[in-house]
């Protein structure tokens, strides 16, 4: 009833975990049975290890949060040797979220990470917390396309491209990466935001600006998912502020074939399975047998 196939990745439910909000999975294994997840998208990984940004890294905002983790991670090699083997015992697709400073780096990582146990790659071309590269790839269609082409050249596993919402025309970005070979798109990454401490007259975050996520951004995310889903043929993975099954259903109706739960995990560590269970209940109550019956259906009611 909940199973979906996203660009060849078979998932038991359409509910994935959003990169950077669920660690590598085991961090939440005392709360949720990881085997019940659609997929685990692991923390953004880079070629070399990174210690991330200095100073304060999160700030709460109304119904949301800012983060400027700055892609702290142990690097692709350590992921492959230390983390991936531990994930093998779970029966859940592992998708590696990757970030590079250059087009070549993305290519190298694609080669390196195309190993058994990795079900797909999610290209983070939109992390606002990395100054070099990062944001430019996500907001400039040509560089985004270059990244996608390079990655596709170096891997045969499914490639999901994660889009930044900090653009004038999200549809143009989606179409560009689709043409460049993306097997799916995921959106949204965080909105670039800021907070200032009125006591000290300093930015709250060490990195000055950070990425806004959580329920606050849901309306923007949903709008973008709807726009993109209408415009592309590849599957769309929707995320941004999903806290409940109700929220997830909105994204499915808007055209997402799967969804990811991010910030909600911090508030409710069971969120990812609660959302999946809630979708099942939603379908049952309506006498529907398959979650795919929801995808894009808001468009039936739009002339």
């Amino acid at each position, binding site marked *: 009833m909940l199973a979906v196939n996203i660009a060849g990745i078979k998932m038991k439910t359409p509910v994935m975990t959003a990169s950077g*909000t669920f660690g590598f999975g085991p961090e939440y294994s*005392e709360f949720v049975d990881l085997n019940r997840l659609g997929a685990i998208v692991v923390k953004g990984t880079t070629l070399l290890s990174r210690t991330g940004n200095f100073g304060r890294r999160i700030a709460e905002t109304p119904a949301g949060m800012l983060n400027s*983790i700055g892609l*702290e991670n142990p690097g692709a090699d350590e992921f492959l040797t230390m983390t991936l083997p531990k994930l093998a015992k779970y029966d859940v697709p592992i998708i590696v979220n990757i970030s590079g400073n250059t087009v070549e780096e993305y290519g190298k990582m694609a080669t390196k990470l195309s190993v058994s146990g990795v079900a797909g790659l999610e290209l983070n071309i939109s992390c606002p917390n990395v100054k070099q590269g990062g944001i430019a790839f996500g907001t400039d269609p040509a560089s985004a396309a270059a990244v996608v082409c390079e990655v596709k050249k170096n891997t045969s596993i499914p490639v999901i491209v994660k889009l930044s919402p900090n653009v004038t025309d999200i549809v143009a970005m989606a179409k560009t990466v689709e043409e460049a070979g993306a097997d799916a798109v995921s959106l949204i990454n965080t909105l670039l935001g800021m907070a200032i401490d009125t006591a000290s007259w300093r930015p709250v975050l060490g990195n000055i600006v950070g990425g806004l996520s*959580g329920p606050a951004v849901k309306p923007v995310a949903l709008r973008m998912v709807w726009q993109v889903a209408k415009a592309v043929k590849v599957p769309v993975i929707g995320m941004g502020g999903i806290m409940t099954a109700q929220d997830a259903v909105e994204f499915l109706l808007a055209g997402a074939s799967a969804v990811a739960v991010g910030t909600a995990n911090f*508030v409710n560590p069971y969120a990812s399975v609660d959302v999946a269970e809630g979708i099942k209940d939603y379908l049952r109550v309506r006498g529907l047998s398959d979650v795919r019956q929801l995808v894009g259906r808001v468009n039936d009611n739009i002339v």
Partner: protein
Amino acid sequence: MALPKMVVRSKVLANELIGPLVWRLTLSAPQIAAVAKPGQFVHVRVMDSLAPLLRRPISIAEVYAAEGTISLIYRVVGQGSAIMAEAKPGSELDLMGPLGNGFSLEAERPLLVGGGIGLAPLVYLAQALCPRPVTILMGGRTKEEMYWQDIFKNLCQNIYITTDDGSLGQQGFTVDALDDILAKGNFDFVYSCGPRPMLAGVARLAKLHNVLCQVSLEDYMACGVGACLSCTCAGNDGKRRKICSDGPVFMAGEVLD
């Protein structure tokens, strides 16, 4: 080591002001009371609303396993703690925990050093160390902040106090008094929680006196379980530590120099 973690709705039994802006919240939380170790914390959802969104990390200050109750001692500093202070007996609070790793309980002759609200987790530590002879050195700004005496007097054999203004005990910071206390005390373990500069001073003196030392660190936390990397710091071995899940309690030498 994996510890049992859970989210429970716990009933508020009492919530009283015990000092300037500081409250003690007593909760019925048998599952947490059964397994919590001193130094661990709970991640509190102060309200079932999307604003404030995030949980607040608060140390487990007291545990009465037989009664199935715990207490949190917290200072009102912002939005979330202000909402906690309004919790009425009978209402419910959503707790996630116990999280993190607690203090070692190996000490035979422990010295506890706490500053300000950092004294909270040391209450449960003192409870757990009993009947071993516990000595505590506590610091605050003025005597008005030293309501902690009442809490610790039944748990500790010796109480040393410093206040910034000298209105109670020795004038100065805890660290100023510590050298002497360590010199004459024959302690085998120092446990400390409080502001960073204090922890650094405590760690330095403990090392000087060749006493084992654990410190409890703090940082802004989103997940509380090691997933979001908002709370990491560098260990002295060059490896990263997550304060929420590798700590909050560390051997001083692991994270401080």
